[in-house]
């Protein structure tokens, strides 16, 4: 617990992620219309519009608060799903070996050859980039990475004495997997998941920036794309949404880095 208090990165990152979640909840409760236009077109930050207005006179602060939910959903949900699938497959593959293990290795190689962003881009452009679709593509391309990490750890853990000791007192496979190995691979999964969450937020924003994102929700990436023509004269249209996006991704990465320090997980989880 002392290590947790000592990790400044974890504290800063964690507090900021919670603040973004708070902003998302606040936006949902306050219910201000993020799509409402006004007469004040490209208005500089002022009392009425603290962060200014965009090219349609929409309030940028309202839109940023509303976009928090989009970014957090797309960041956390696919990474969490990938963590569950990846841990399950990785544990099974590493523990039992065999055909499942072979298939897992081949699949990971395939996923690593084609960049994740390209897969998401092609899928979003062809099927319409709803948040659901982007989430599914991300989860589908994240879990093999997670599974590979878990598999590597499981292989080195399954030969250790405590597994044998557990067996000698009559524990079955299920008991060993769920009571011992799962807890031991959990740190690397959690660290990897927070990095993947940061990457997911980046990919969603990139898709929205290219105009193939979900048009029914406010996305910080789409706000940055809208600002493209005005950024030279109305800097606030790009700077504020971009800063919100960068800070959120940074916070997710800080949480990952901080947890890796606290649990002493080797920093081989990037990719």
């Amino acid at each position, binding site marked *: 617990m002392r290590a947790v208090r000592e990790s400044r990165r974890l504290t800063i990152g964690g507090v900021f992620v919670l603040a973004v979640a708070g902003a998302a909840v606040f936006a949902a409760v306050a219910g201000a219309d993020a799509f409402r236009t006004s007469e004040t077109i490209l208005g500089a930050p002022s009392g009425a519009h603290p962060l200014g207005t965009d090219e349609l006179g929409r309030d940028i602060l309202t839109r940023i608060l509303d976009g928090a939910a989009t970014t957090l959903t797309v960041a956390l949900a696919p990474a969490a799903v990938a963590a569950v699938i990846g841990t399950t497959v990785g544990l099974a593959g590493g523990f039992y070996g065999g055909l499942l293990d072979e298939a897992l290795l081949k699949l990971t190689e*395939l996923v690593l*050859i*084609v*960049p994740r*962003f*390209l897969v998401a*881009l*092609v*899928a979003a*452009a*062809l*099927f319409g980039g709803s948040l659901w679709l982007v989430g599914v593509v991300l989860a589908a391309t994240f879990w093999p990475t997670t599974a590979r990490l878990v598999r590597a750890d499981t292989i080195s853990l399954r030969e250790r004495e405590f597994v044998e000791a557990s067996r000698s007192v009559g524990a079955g496979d299920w008991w060993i997997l769920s009571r011992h190995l799962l807890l031991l691979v959990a740190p690397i999964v959690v660290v990897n998941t927070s990095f993947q969450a*940061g990457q997911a937020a*980046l990919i969603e*924003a*990139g898709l929205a*920036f*290219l105009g*193939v994102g979900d048009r029914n929700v406010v996305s910080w*990436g789409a706000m*940055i794309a809208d*600002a*493209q023509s005005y*950024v*030279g*004269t109305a*800097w606030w249209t*790009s*700077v504020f949404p*971009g800063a919100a*996006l*960068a*800070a959120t*991704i*940074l916070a997710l*990465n*800080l949480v990952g*880095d901080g947890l890796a320090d606290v649990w002493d997980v080797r*920093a081989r989880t990037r990719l």
Partner: protein
Amino acid sequence: MTAATFALISAAPGDTAQVLAGQAGADPAYLALIRERFQLDRPLRYQIASYLGHAARGDLGYSPVQGRPVRSAIEARLPASALLAGTALVLATVVGVSVGTFAAAHRGGAVDAAASVMSLLAYSLPVFWLGQLLVALFAVRLHWLPAGGMHAADEPGGVADVLRHLVLPAVTLSLLLVALVVRVTRAATAEALGEDYVVAARAKGAPEARVVAVHALPNALRPVVTVLTGYLGLVLTGSVLVETVFVWPGLGRLLYDSVLARDTPMLAGLLLFSAVVVVLANIAADILYRVLDPRTGFR
């Protein structure tokens, strides 16, 4: 993978013939003509088999959207992408290795701390946002550099002109690579500095700069090669965002246009091409390992 591309595109809603005809609701006879001309009426497995047969002979088919063979479209865009990616890689190697080595030699120092913060930031900054801010500052406000494109509209062609256009996109694209290289170089050099042969070099009185540059650094380069070659495929095709922000006429931009135009042959060709680049990069990495470490000699 090619098969997956075809399956994905044909499973998508909408019709290639419709897109080619330009407008929804085009003359049915005209649509039928297009289908026959580009064999869109054949079964999917026939299309895939036919494609692979031709691809093996270096023929990637014809892109109706571009109005030219896929291969020539790729060849036309390749120089621009190679120039951008190559510059970004060189930049990342030079800056990354020097900063990483310095940080490792002066651990806990100001450069080390700054490098650590910078690399965290680089992982988190969206490249398209960074590119946009750089354009706003250096092109729109200060007028130091052009905002986009590869040549000046009024006086194209000169080397200096291309270089001026290259600065901003190359810096933007290299940012993440620099961060990766700094991180890897620092870790590997720091580890090498703790090895016995470094202690021995210090014991015989070698100056610190020589210890770092001659004894520790060469052994730290292997992971750097891994990082750079591992990201080559990503740099070449993954530069979609950077090429879009800076209107750079490369492969990333071509890929984006092909996605929007539903240009199946072009997409399949580009994905195949990027896979080939990834494989070639891996071979290059193997060769470089052997140059860097004579112990793993050629067999």
